[in-house]
């Protein structure tokens, strides 16, 4: 089956738009984006994967997770998504931070992005639209700069890990 994938960036509003179709019904796709046991199976490209530490899917609740590639390495970076709005089987919005393992937002405490995930049922497919608004490009630019510095200092692996953390921080 041909599944649509569209990725556009609006730099003027610092927003990324992603649209993707999935060959499954709305109930299942909704679960895949909101239940930790499914999220942990697909988020992050191999060998990296998401490992959920806490998931409390309700308004005011949060999802605390990290990226791992090796079970024996203790993760140092966590990502935190706070659920701002939930409209069951329709959309949910998160505010995203970097955090420590207890879910305390990173020293600076700034939010990296606001992400709205919308779901639309079709005949045989479900369409997901992700709208990710960065708080500012200055922050993105800072992250990128940090990543490059690390990458040069300790090799490409950290840079990759850094990218992974960024990417799943949605």
């Amino acid at each position: 089956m041909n599944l649509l994938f569209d990725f556009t960036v609006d730099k003027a509003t610092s927003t990324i738009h992603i649209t993707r179709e999935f060959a499954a019904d709305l109930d299942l796709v909704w679960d895949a984006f909101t239940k930790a046991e499914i999220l942990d199976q697909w988020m992050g490209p191999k060998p990296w994967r998401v490992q959920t530490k806490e998931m409390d899917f309700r308004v005011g609740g949060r999802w605390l997770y990290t990226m791992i590639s090796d079970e024996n390495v203790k993760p140092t970076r966590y990502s935190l998504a706070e659920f701002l709005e939930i409209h069951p089987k329709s959309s949910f919005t998160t505010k995203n931070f970097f955090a420590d393992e207890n879910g305390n937002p990173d020293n600076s405490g700034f939010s990296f992005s606001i992400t709205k995930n919308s779901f639309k049922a079709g005949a045989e497919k479900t369409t997901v639209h992700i709208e990710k608004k960065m708080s500012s490009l200055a922050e993105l630019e800072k992250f990128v700069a940090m990543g490059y510095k690390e990458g040069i200092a300790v090799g490409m692996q950290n840079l990759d890990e850094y990218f992974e953390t960024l990417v799943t921080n949605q």
Partner: protein
Amino acid sequence: MRRDIFQAIADPTRRAILVLVAVHAMTPNAIAEHFAITRQSISKHLRILSECELLAQKQDGREIYYELKMDKMKEIDIWLDQFREIMEKSFEQLDQVLFTIKNKKK
């Protein structure tokens, strides 16, 4: 002073300045000739773009030239490309997971 690069390139005049100097380095006067706004506002735009490190200055004799400094713009594009690729790969994994769950239900 810290500047927001997104904010800097959100302004249409500043985007036009970047396009102009991307072709070749220009003096503030030569840049100002392209716009129907005061020389003073052009200077302000140039200052903001310089503070964002999108523009670099170089001295040639008595003239100052502005040229495009590509690095940061390029870094952001590289990051966006990576992000796109990682999302694409994750979604392909999700296709597999959905397929597996659907088959189990049957």
